[in-house]
Every structure is written in C-alpha cells, then in structure tokens.
C-alpha cells in the first residue's frame, strides 16, 4: 500500500514540484516582462496621446480625413487617442512575445508559430478595417440617398447595406485565417442568392406595376419635385 502511495501520488507530485521549481525562474521572468510591458505600454500610450494633443494632431487628422475613417470604424475619442492606443498596444504585444520567449522552448515555439500566423492575422484585420470603413461609407450614402428620395424605411435600408458589407468582410477575413473555410462563403452565397432571387421573383411577378411606377418616379424625381412644390430651385 505504501509503495503504491509512493509511486502513484508522491513521486508524480515530487516531479511536478521539481518541474515547477525548475520552471519558476522562467515564469517569473515572463511575468516580470509582461508587467513591465503593461506599464511601458500605458506610459507610451499616455505620452503619445498627450504629445499628439499638444501638437494639435487631431486638427491635422481632421483635414487629412483620418478622423472620419477612425470614426467610421467606431473610435469616437479623436485621432490622438487612437494613435496612442495603437502605440500602447504595440508595446504590449512586443512584451507578450518577449514573455512567451522567456518561458523557454515551448514559449519560443509558440512565438515562432505566432510569427508564421501573423501575416494572415494582419491581413484579416486589414480586411475588417477596410470592410468597416466601406460599410460605414456605403451605408451613409444609401441612407442619404433614401432620405432625399423620401423613401420610408431609409434607416432600415442603410442598416441592410451596412450588415451586408460587414458580413462579406467577416467571411473573407475568416476565410483568410482558415476558420470556417469555404462553408461560410457557400452558406452566405446561398442565403444572399436566395434573398435576391426571392425579392426579384416577388417584385417581378407581384409588383410589375409598382416597379414601373417606382422607376418612373425615380427618373422624373426632379421634375416632379418642382411640379409638386411649385418652386424652381435655380
């Protein structure tokens, strides 16, 4: 019984303890690097943010159109803040990689795999950023055009445009990092194709007159507007 206890419990525990003791310097080094990176990241973020505010970077970004882009992606606290966050985040990522490296061969392997995967990840992120910008841009264009045409449900239409472009971007990004593969694209194609075909059939069969009227109305909108309001704009 004692021998069994010794072999089944105590020896593995002792081995584990030895491993922990052997590994402890690497873990503490990794934690130290990580904490230092977090502090450095915060400091870099603050310095960059405040420095850019001091030199009125936001105004320059406004003029260059950078602020509009960051706002479309969802950052509403100004371009200096976005750049500060990116700089701080970069320091943190570098710290994380150093910390993983400090863990020894296993960590190094992880870092190596990370670097192999990094281009795919960056491309996917870029696809999402571009998709986000495009979604915001086209949704706003659709919203304004629909409002000017006095269409009911203008916001719904714009929301549909935004959703469609976002979905497309997410699927392309996921395909790029090999999540879901072709299944996602096929699913999306089937659903979208189905919706378009359904609408076309419904509009074509049930709404020929409505379609004709809508097209006529769109083509003659300017004339109708002046005719109905009685005002000549120019």
């Amino acid at each position, binding site marked *: 019984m004692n021998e069994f206890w010794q072999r089944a419990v105590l020896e593995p525990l002792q081995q584990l303890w030895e491993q922990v003791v052997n590994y402890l310097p690497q873990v503490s080094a990794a934690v130290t690097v990580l904490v230092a990176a977090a502090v450095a990241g915060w400091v870099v973020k603050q310095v960059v943010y405040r420095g850019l505010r001091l030199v009125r970077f936001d105004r320059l970004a406004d003029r*260059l159109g950078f602020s509009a882009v960051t706002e479309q992606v969802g950052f509403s606290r100004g371009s200096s803040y976005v750049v500060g966050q990116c700089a701080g985040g970069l320091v943190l990522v570098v710290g994380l990689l150093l910390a993983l490296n400090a863990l020894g061969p296993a960590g190094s392997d992880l870092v190596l795999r990370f670097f192999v995967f990094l281009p795919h990840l960056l491309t996917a992120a870029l696809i999402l950023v571009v998709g986000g910008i495009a979604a915001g841009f086209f949704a706003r264009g659709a919203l*304004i055009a629909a409002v*000017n045409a006095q269409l009911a449900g203008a916001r719904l239409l714009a929301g549909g445009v935004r959703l469609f472009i976002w979905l497309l971007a997410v699927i392309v990004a996921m395909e790029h990092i090999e999540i879901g593969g072709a299944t996602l694209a096929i699913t999306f194609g089937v659903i979208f194709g189905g919706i378009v075909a359904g609408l076309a059939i419904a509009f074509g069969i049930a709404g020929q007159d409505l379609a004709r009227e809508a097209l006529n109305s769109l083509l003659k909108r300017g004339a109708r507007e002046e005719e109905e*309001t*009685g*005002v000549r704009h*120019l």
Partner: protein
Amino acid sequence: MGETDIQVPATVQAVEKLGEADIVIGIPSYNNAGTIKHVVRAVSAGLARHFSDQRCAIINSDGGSTDGTPQAVLQAQLETDKLLLVRHPLQPVHRISTPYHGLPGKGSAFRTIFQAAKSLKAKACAVVDADLRSITPDWIDLLVRPVVQNNFDYVAPYYRRHKYDGTITNSIVYPLTRALYGTRVRQPIGGEFGLSAKLLNRLLAKDVWETDVARYGVDIWMTTTALAEGFRVCQVFLGAKLHDPKDPGADLSAMLVQVVGSLFSLMEEHEKVWKNVRGSIPAPLYGFPYAVGLEPVRVNPERMITAFQQGCRDLEPVYGSFLRADLVGELQRLANGQPAELDLNDFVWVQLIHEFAVAYHRRTLDRKHLLQSLTPLYLGWVASFVKRTQEASDDAAEQQIERLSRAYEQLKQSLVERWEGR
C-alpha cells in the same frame, strides 16, 4: 501655340478667316434647335442696332447637338456677316453628368468662346444662353456697353424673377457670395454676362478648366473670380428671363452638390480675400428696372416639410458628426413640432450653411455625402420661406431675402472663427 490658344484646327482656321473683331457674342448650345434661331437673330439685330460702328462676331459653340441646332443657326437671317460655328470638345462625362444649367460641357463651351474672342482680339465679349425666349436686341447693348463705355470687367445680369424662382440662389448663392466678397450681385449664376478682354484673359490663364468647378460651376466661378480678384463688376437689368425648361431629370440633391460644392470650393481658393471682408456694397446697376408681369405660381410646402422632418429624423447621426450640438437640437425641435408651425429662421439657416462650409473645408465627412445631406434642410428653409411669404408680394419677399443676406453678414465673424478652428 500657348495653352490658352485654340486647340481645334478647324476652329483655328475659322477664327483666322474672320480676322479681328471688337465685340464677340458667344452662344453655347446643346440641342436648342427650337430657340436658337430666335436668339441668334436677336443678337445679330442687337449688334447691328447698337454697335454698327464696331467689328462684331457671333460664335455658336455647340456640344454636338443631334436636333439640328447648327443648321438652325445657319438658317437665321443675320444682320452681321461674321458668324462662326464651332464645336466645343465634349467628353463622355459631359454627356452623362449634365451640369445644373442643363448644358453638357458648359465650361468647355465658354473656354472655346473665350479662346476665339482672344484670338479675334476682342475688346468685349458677352455670352447668352441658347434656350432664351425673352431675349431682345437690347440685351446685347446692356451686356456689352458697360464694358466698352464704362470700363467694367464683368457685367452680371439682373432679372425680375418670381419670389419662388431661384430659391438656391436666394437662400445660399446670392447672400453667401455677398457676405463673403462684399459686393451685391443679385444673380451670381445667371446664364448671361459680359466680359472685358482683361478679365477674359485672366479667366483663360486660370488652371481650372479641366476641374469640376469649370464643369459644373462655371458661372459662379466667373462671378467669384471677378469679385475676389478686384475686377470692376456691375449689373444690368434685363427684365424677365423666360427660357426652355431645364433637364426634367435634374435631381435637387445633384444641383445642390454642384452649386454649393462649387461655392465652398471657391471659398477655399479665396480664403485670404473673404476673411477680411465685412459688410457689402451693391454692384452698380444699369438699365431701367421696370416692373414685369410674372406668372402666378401655386406652391405646396407640405411635401417639403415632410422631407425636412424625415431628414432631421433619419439623418440625425450624420448631422451629429459635423453640426454643433445646439444646431442638431434645434433641428430636432423643429422636426418634432407641428408641420404648420415650421419656421427655420434666418439665423439658424445661416449657421447651418456655415457649419456645412466648415465641414466641407475640414473634410469631416465625404464631401458628396455632406452636400447631399443638405437637401432636406434646404427644403425646410424653402418651406419656411414659403409660409412666411405666401401672401406677400414679390417685393416683400425680396425684403425677406435682404434680411437673410444681412444675417449672413452679421454672422460672418463667427464663420471666420469656425473656419479657422477657433
């Protein structure tokens, strides 16, 4: 051959054949077979009656009409022997995107006419639309004489118009141009004008002929250039302007993008000039401003109010991205009120236009989206104007425009501050 010289060989030969001319009248055209004969005859009679002692030429610059416009010009019985038919280069884009005045490639037409006038060594040049029904021979005298006799460089038209005719001009173009450059030109985008050789050469030398400003806003560009660069500007009273209906498919928001976009773009170009201008003086007016009977117009503001309300409701996030919070709040208050009580007052309207100009300048939003989003607010202003002036005479309505113009002038300092980001 210099960059401002005529590029088309056939046109060069035709101009050389004409020799020299003291006065050149240009008629840009595109599918105006129904009216151009009358216009050419009126121009010809005007030159014969008022400038018989001068060498005169009429130039028709056609954009490739398919309805027999050039043939109609040739059929017109002329009292002058110098008639030149040229074709201005019309690129595919001109055919697709018709400018707000309805003539594709109007900038190219003007350039061709100006180049011909320069080659003919003309002292004065005038341009009249080919779709005019109310032109008389006296118009030529009115447009040209201030140049040849009084040394003016730019002669702008002054028409009697119905109070609801030209609402973009009344609400934005005239009062903003007046407040910016300090001179009151009542019709800054009229289709007719007279030019001196000095201004004509200056315009030809400018590097804008291939840009959207020349393509879509050539009228306001010429007026603004004359005002901002200190040329001598006057107005001439031409009575009523009757012309063929413009492109029936012309979309209001496209008009606003072209006209207001040109205005804002010119604000950037002449920033150093307008920032220092305060108040305004009227440009001298020539001709006898007689009363004109104008056709009554029945106006329905309901549709405009609905458009305004929907715009304020649905475009709130768009407006919130570049308008001041207090203005967004005011728009919501107006949109949520009773339609019958809508009153978008002058000061709110002027501040809105200023905010749009500043957002255009800073590129806060895509410029086309920005200008398109002005449409519902503009309709809100027009509806308010109609409600205020429905029972008023045209003169009383003109007083309202005068009040609005003064509001633009009063708020000029705040525009400068906002423009500079203060």
